[in-house]
């Protein structure tokens, strides 16, 4: 029994491979269609990764500056830092004392002698500050709540830097982040759906062309599994070949065109990251593409052959 199953399995694999070779033109047409759809799908995935990377890069530079009164004691400052850390929304808090702030200011304005002269004529007017790096710049409400308590407001010399224009910028980035995340997920879901429909219909048409074979095999007494098996193997080979082709096409395009695309994106998007992402995840992408091609191909052919295998 075990040996019989092994022989059957071996024959299914062998017949699938032979059919693939003998129906090469039909196979090429199906592979071409699958390659195009898998390439579009891969582009969608890489584009989404690039958008996410760009948005993450932007949001990682968002921080909140809390300006402290000169009279603040070390104990008060530590208390404020502890309260902020307790919100669990903080990645890090850096303290810059007045001297450090001044030093950085002078460095940043090294070319502006008038400004440097003006600031040197008085004692250091710049306040010490806490630079808060939030874990999620889209969610600052807890941090804001701590900073806005009457006791803590008294410790601040100026309004927190997320207010005013900067607040508007943070809000814009926040809403853009949400939009890109949601659009990316929806976009990929749509591409997956369209890809599956195209691949499914391509395979359905391929099998429709050979439906007589299925009927003959059934009349000769072949079991549905034995009839369907080689077709599934054949379409799995289509999927694997299409995955490999789409990977080569995408790799070439990313390698050749990333510079051109970088220039045309006006610096808004980090297009070069797409090439980096592609190289970094090459094996995962390869495995994913082949798995997607094989699974979609196998499922489509299993479904498409079903109607011709029903016993009357």
């Amino acid at each position: 029994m075990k040996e019989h199953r092994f022989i059957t399995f071996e024959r299914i694999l062998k017949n699938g491979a032979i059919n693939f070779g003998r129906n090469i033109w039909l196979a090429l047409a199906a592979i071409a269609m699958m390659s195009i759809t898998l390439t579009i799908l891969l582009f969608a995935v890489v584009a989404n990764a690039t958008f996410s990377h760009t948005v993450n890069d932007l949001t990682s530079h968002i921080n909140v500056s809390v300006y402290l009164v000169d009279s603040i004691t070390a104990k008060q400052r530590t208390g404020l830092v502890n309260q902020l850390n307790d919100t669990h929304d903080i990645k890090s808090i850096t303290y810059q004392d007045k001297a450090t702030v001044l030093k950085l200011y002078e460095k940043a304005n090294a070319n502006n002698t008038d400004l440097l002269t003006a600031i040197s004529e008085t004692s250091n007017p710049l306040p010490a500050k806490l630079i808060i790096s939030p874990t999620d710049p889209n969610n600052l409400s807890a941090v804001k709540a701590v900073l806005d308590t009457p006791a803590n407001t008294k410790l601040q010399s100026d309004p927190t830097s997320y207010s005013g224009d900067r607040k508007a910028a943070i809000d814009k980035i926040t809403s853009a982040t949400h939009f890109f995340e949601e659009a990316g997920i929806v976009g990929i879901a749509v591409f997956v759906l369209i890809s599956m429909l195209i691949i499914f219909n391509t395979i359905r048409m391929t099998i429709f062309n050979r439906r007589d074979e299925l009927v003959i095999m059934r009349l000769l007494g072949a079991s549905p599994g034995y009839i369907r098996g080689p077709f599934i193997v054949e379409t799995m080979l289509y999927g694997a070949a299409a995955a490999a082709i789409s990977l080569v096409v995408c790799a070439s395009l990313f390698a050749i065109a990333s510079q051109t695309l970088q220039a045309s994106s006006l610096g808004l998007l980090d297009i070069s990251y797409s090439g980096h992402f592609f190289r970094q995840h090459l094996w995962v992408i390869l495995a994913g593409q082949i798995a997607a091609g094989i699974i979609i191909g196998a499922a489509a052919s299993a479904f498409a052959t079903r109607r011709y295998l029903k016993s009357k």
Partner: protein
Amino acid sequence: MILLDRVTKTYNRRGSALERVSLHIEPKEFVIIVGQSGAGKTTLFRLLTREEKPTSGKIVVGGMDYDKLKDKDVPMLRRKIGVVFQDFKLLPGKTVYENVAFALEIAGLSNAEIKHTIPKVLDLVGLKGKENNYPLELSGGERQRVAIARAVVRQPKILIADEPTGNLDPKHAWDVIKVLEKVNKFGTTVLLTTHNQEIVNALRRRVITIKDGKIVSDRAVGQYKSQ
């Protein structure tokens, strides 16, 4: 070997294709079913191969009662019956050797057994040397002989041939009939449907005549006069 008891097959649009047909065929018999086109021969054939189910009545073939047959048992039934179709029904993407081997592969025979059996069968039907040809490279008569080789390679107890000479010229038609006679001589029950008067009368075998879905005559050594 084959038993039909008051078998009726009714189609919604066409009405009755077979009406209360009863017949009994003994092992090793060579029986010819004759009748004009539309008489019900092909319906009878399709009932025997379980492509169709009867509307009423009982069918027993080789000890298998079709009433008790489940859908999953149909492939097993078809492996036990050799079937030859008027339009050959060869697999176009497979060679002559592979077409015949397919019947053995689905029965689970080993590669060694297949290699041993096929040359003998191809020799029997006169197709030695054509093993690597595809069906499209063969004449109609040769294709039908491939179909017969495929039907008999499993040495079935019953061979059903539906108008196997229908698409052939007289010379090739006789080649096919001679092969069927040879198969019958080896002990296989042959059920042949045809409306070829010349063949029927020359064979001098049992002839069952169907007209309008009913058996109108059943003679041990029958003659047939087509209208």
